[in-house]
């Protein structure tokens, strides 16, 4: 038997879970180039107006079909192509004899450069909307978009996807997307998660030919090109089993979680970015177990008022459920310009998390003030990352109390929130009962990396990073026991909590609170319902 193409496996990162199987279709990179002489100004003007009209029509159709997030992006683009201040210079250039495409591109490039130079994260994101619009109008001048011609069940292959390209593709017919670049926090990834489109990003230099059959397990970030018949049979069986589980999980989504032996379990959600709650119902969870606040700092340290507003929105969304907010966890794999220390030889063992906060006090105190103000509005909890020794919690609590006292002295309403800690350094897990924390939240990703001495992204060492490694499980058990002994809550907010296969061992370790990715809630509730809790005698202990 001769196989034209051998089976090849690639690993990327999961942007949105699910299984996809279909032929690879590469989306063209970049806009169609616009060569050639300008026709008469009248013809060029006609061409320009027609391209604008066609773009407006496409964007309107897309906006009608889009959800809140997608519609916002599209309506901004729609408003821009009706904006005479944007269009008049193009019309003038065309009247002066330049080609429509060149004039349009020059005008938009100027705007894009303007947005980018703002050094503002929000404006930079908008700049990608502008280049998206630029390319759509250019494509329409060159005979239009061809997204409709894609074969049924195709897997889209591209360097990256812009939001409007994502929205212009018919995902009812397509099975998923794999991107060589991209990031799991991009607009397109957020859209993919909210639409349930399986997507893998950051594949690197994977060799995928046009029309290659792709088998994608997007939750695992794995892509198999030209799978052999055995691989294909295993993949198909896995996908069918997954579909059955998803159906059952959907039924449990809004019900309180319970183990097979009837013990109630709390399932909280992790929030990476404020926009993630827009399309999420609070009814699927018992609150927020981890809000990462790094997104607030991407454009430099944010003002107290801006932070307060974001924390207030989270509490309003949660409708009385507890909201846990983690203080800035910069450093390590999350450098922030102007805030973190540059040039550390090993950033993961350097000035990160609470270590950085205690050094950059002015930034930390601003965050504590915003948190204490928001705490007067509802059940807000503050969580401190990367704690290694009890003295760090003592120092943070002192700063928090000073912030509350200062706010009261200024006549500002504030309250001291519950103050807990992440348990992600083995030293903290071993001695957890010595820390004055109002709750513990186990950060399994870092706990595994620091326990096993394996960085998160090292290829070929996967066998050392499994969450159920006995040493890691022992540290989790110790933390749970410390929480019981001190009468405070212990949750787990790392990736382990979002993986159904770990639900049973974590319950057996005594864990009763899981904080998971929103998309994983149903499957985790299902896994919990099929597992047993730790024996009642141990629980009482």
């Amino acid at each position, binding site marked *: 038997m001769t196989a034209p193409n051998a089976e090849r496996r690639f690993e990327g990162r999961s942007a949105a879970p699910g299984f996809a199987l279909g032929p690879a279709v590469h989306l063209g990179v970049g806009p169609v180039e616009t060569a050639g002489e300008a026709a008469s100004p009248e013809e060029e003007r006609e061409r320009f107006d027609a391209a604008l009209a066609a773009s407006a029509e496409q964007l309107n159709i897309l906006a009608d079909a889009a959800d809140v997030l997608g519609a916002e992006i599209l309506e901004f683009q729609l408003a821009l192509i009706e904006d005479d201040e944007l269009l008049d210079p193009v019309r003038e250039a065309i009247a002066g004899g330049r080609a429509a495409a060149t004039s349009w591109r020059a005008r938009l490039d100027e705007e894009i450069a303007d947005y980018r130079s703002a050094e503002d994260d929000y404006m930079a994101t908008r700049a990608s909307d502008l280049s998206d619009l630029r390319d759509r109008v250019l494509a329409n001048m060159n005979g239009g978009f061809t997204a409709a011609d894609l074969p049924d069940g195709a897997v889209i292959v591209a360097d990256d996807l812009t939001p409007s390209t994502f929205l212009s593709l018919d995902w009812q017919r397509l099975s998923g997307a794999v991107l060589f670049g991209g990031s799991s926090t991009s607009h397109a990834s957020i859209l993919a998660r909210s639409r349930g489109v399986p997507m893998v990003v950051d594949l690197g230099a994977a060799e995928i030919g046009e029309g290659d059959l792709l088998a994608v397990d997007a939750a695992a970030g794995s892509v198999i090109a030209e799978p052999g018949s055995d691989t294909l049979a295993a993949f198909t069986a896995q996908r069918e089993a997954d579909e059955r589980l998803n159906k059952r999980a959907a039924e449990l989504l809004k019900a309180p979680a319970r183990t097979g032996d009837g013990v109630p379990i709390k399932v909280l959600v992790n929030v990476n970015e404020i926009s993630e709650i827009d399309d999420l119902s609070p009814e699927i969870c018992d609150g927020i177990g981890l809000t990462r606040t790094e997104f607030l700092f991407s454009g430099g340290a944010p003002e107290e008022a801006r932070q307060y*507003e974001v924390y207030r929105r989270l509490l309003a969304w949660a409708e009385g459920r507890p909201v846990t907010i983690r203080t800035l966890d910069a450093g390590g794999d999350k450098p922030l310009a102007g805030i973190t220390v540059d040039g550390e030889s090993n950033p993961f063992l350097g000035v990160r998390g609470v270590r950085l906060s205690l050094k950059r006090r002015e930034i930390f105190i601003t965050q504590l003030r915003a948190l204490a103000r928001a705490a007067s509005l509802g059940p807000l909890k503050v969580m401190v990352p990367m704690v290694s020794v009890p003295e760090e919690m003592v120092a943070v609590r002192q700063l928090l109390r000073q912030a509350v006292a200062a706010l009261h002295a200024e006549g500002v309403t504030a309250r001291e929130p519950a103050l807990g800690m992440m348990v992600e350094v083995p030293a903290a897990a071993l001695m957890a009962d010595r820390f004055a924390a109002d709750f513990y939240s186990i950060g399994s990703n870092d706990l595994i990396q620091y326990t096993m001495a394996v960085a998160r992204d090292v290829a070929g060492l996967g066998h050392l990073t499994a969450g159920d490694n006995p040493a890691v499980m022992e540290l989790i058990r110790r933390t749970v026991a410390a929480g019981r002994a001190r009468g405070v809550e212990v949750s787990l907010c790392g990736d382990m909590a979002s993986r159904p296969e770990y639900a049973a061992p974590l319950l057996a370790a005594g864990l009763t609170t899981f904080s998971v990715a929103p998309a994983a809630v149903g499957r985790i509730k299902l896994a919990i319902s099929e597992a047993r809790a730790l024996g009642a005698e141990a629980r009482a202990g």
Partner: protein
Amino acid sequence: MSEAWQTESAVIQDATGLHARPAVKLTKLAKRFEARVEIRPESAETWINAKSPSAVMKLKAPHLARLEIRASGGDAPAAVAALRDLINRDFNDSAER
């Protein structure tokens, strides 16, 4: 057209400032009026066209910034009142239509 300007001002409530969604709402509302409608951040020198989303976006008016609004032409009083109210209710749709 007379150069008699009607003026008003209002403070941006949204935590992220005058970003895309409110900018689009503001320009759409301004376009409903015949009058020439302009805005500027308090203390800025130049006025910009409130009917142009690209111009409004580039103001980058932050949270708690005070915006000045002015209009001239037939329905100018209604235009400045409508824009002021839109900003004051934090760009919520409730009172529209």
